[in-house]
């Protein structure tokens, strides 16, 4: 079974857990004491990933330390629909947003670590680069809507959506509001209603999709 070095509060690890859930893949989760223990910077994990970051994915002789590569790996094995098709523009868009997701990690992710877990950093700079990235994403989604497409790179969800979604959804944790971005909010609802969607702390399921308790009762 694939083994994921995981932290429940890490949006990057959540990408991989979410992708696995959406594609019906089972992961063996190995919890890393990221906070307060800083285990990801200890000798055992540095030997696997000299960058000192998580997630880390092991599958036989495959060892991955970039979440985008993990998403592609899971999709290729279990659900190739989530990868780019043969259309040149679509393939480029998937790649564009996969790379772009790194900017969300460093900006919004950095702001969140600063505001929540007291990681040192220039919070003003982190938040303003996060806002710049959100504006770009909002515009990308509006352009997609004009093409008649509901997701970031195609009319179906792809690895690009999963790569960008977590840090965006958790922007408020870092003191960045999502109120100014209607297209992002709509896109987030769409992703949260996908069959197999799972939550993480700070990212809720859509309560309104659950049956009303009274209705359930009166049916039985």
């Amino acid at each position: 079974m694939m083994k994921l070095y995981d932290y429940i509060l890490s949006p990057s690890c959540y990408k991989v857990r979410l992708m696995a859930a959406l594609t019906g893949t089972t992961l063996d989760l190995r919890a890393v004491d990221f906070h307060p223990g800083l285990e990801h910077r200890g000798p055992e994990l540095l030997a696997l990933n000299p960058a000192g970051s998580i997630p880390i994915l092991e599958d036989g002789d495959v060892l991955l330390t970039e979440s985008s590569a993990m998403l592609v790996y899971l999709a290729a094995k279990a659900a190739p629909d989530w990868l780019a098709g043969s259309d040149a523009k679509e393939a480029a868009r998937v790649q564009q947003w996969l790379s772009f997701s790194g900017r969300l990690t460093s900006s919004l992710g950095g702001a969140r670590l600063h505001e929540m877990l007291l990681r040192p950093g220039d919070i003003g700079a982190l938040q303003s680069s996060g806002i710049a990235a959100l504006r770009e994403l909002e515009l990308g989604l509006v352009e997609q809507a004009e093409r008649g497409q509901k997701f970031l790179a195609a009319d179906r969800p792809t690895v690009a959506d999963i790569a960008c979604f977590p840090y965006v959804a958790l922007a408020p944790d870092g003191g960045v509001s999502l109120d100014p971005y209607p297209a992002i909010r709509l896109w987030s609802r769409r992703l949260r209603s996908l069959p197999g969607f799972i939550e993480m702390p700070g990212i809720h399921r859509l309560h309104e999709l659950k049956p009303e308790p009274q209705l359930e009762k009166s049916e039985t």
Partner: protein
Amino acid sequence: MTVGPMFDEWYPVGIFGQLDAAGRKTMLMGEPIVVARDDNGDAKVTDGTGRSLPVCVRYGHVWTSLGDPKKKLFAIPEADQPGRRFVDVGVVRVRCSPLRAVENFLDIAHFPFVHTDILGAEPHTEVQAYKVEIREDVDEVWATQVEFYQPQAAKSASGGITTQYMYRVAGPTSTVLYKTCPPRPSEWDVITLFVQPLAEDLCDVWPWMALFDDDTPMTDLIHFQQTIFLQDRSILENQVPRLLPLDPGMEMPTRADLTSVAYRRWLKRHNFTYGAQLVAQ
């Protein structure tokens, strides 16, 4: 704003085991402080002028006060009980009033909606009647005979159970709960929320636990509690108004639950208003 009587109370300011000589630069009610270890390895807290503040190391954390504490730090006898595991969950910063962080911890009605499928689940949303009192001898708020159905009460629980709870407010920003211990029904698990007030609307929260659970790896115990607290954090940061409303006159009938009413009454009695907003009816 003057701090008032909360000035003389004890507050958590760091995990003792993680301190080094360089120390942790932080704030306590608007005052810059440094929490460090001295040459003997003992905890030492100094304020912005270099003055040494009172120090006490207990329950995994360093405690201090800007003023002159009238009492020793509250007791948690379970902290000395053999066989328990002590879990330093780690700090989480929350942009909310320190008093609101405590009040939210006392309220079980939010479990099914905020901690869905862990500490509560629909349709089990009803909170049965329980007892609340201010215990004059120890000057603490206690809620007892609290019961709630929980799908996953603890890492050690292997399915849904009805959990018994007791809640306790031991200091203006320190609260302790006792809940059914799944592997040892004759004992209580102890879970605390120690809150460091940085400002009236900003706090560092230090959850800590003393559990009977020989099986779960320490990291999993930490993550279970961090998951729960992070679910609370997003709620706490969105509460309006940011400060805890306290009616200076008569008790106002609120939607809040009984424990919260008693906590507010106790805060008012002591004039513990740092992080509160006095609202006239």
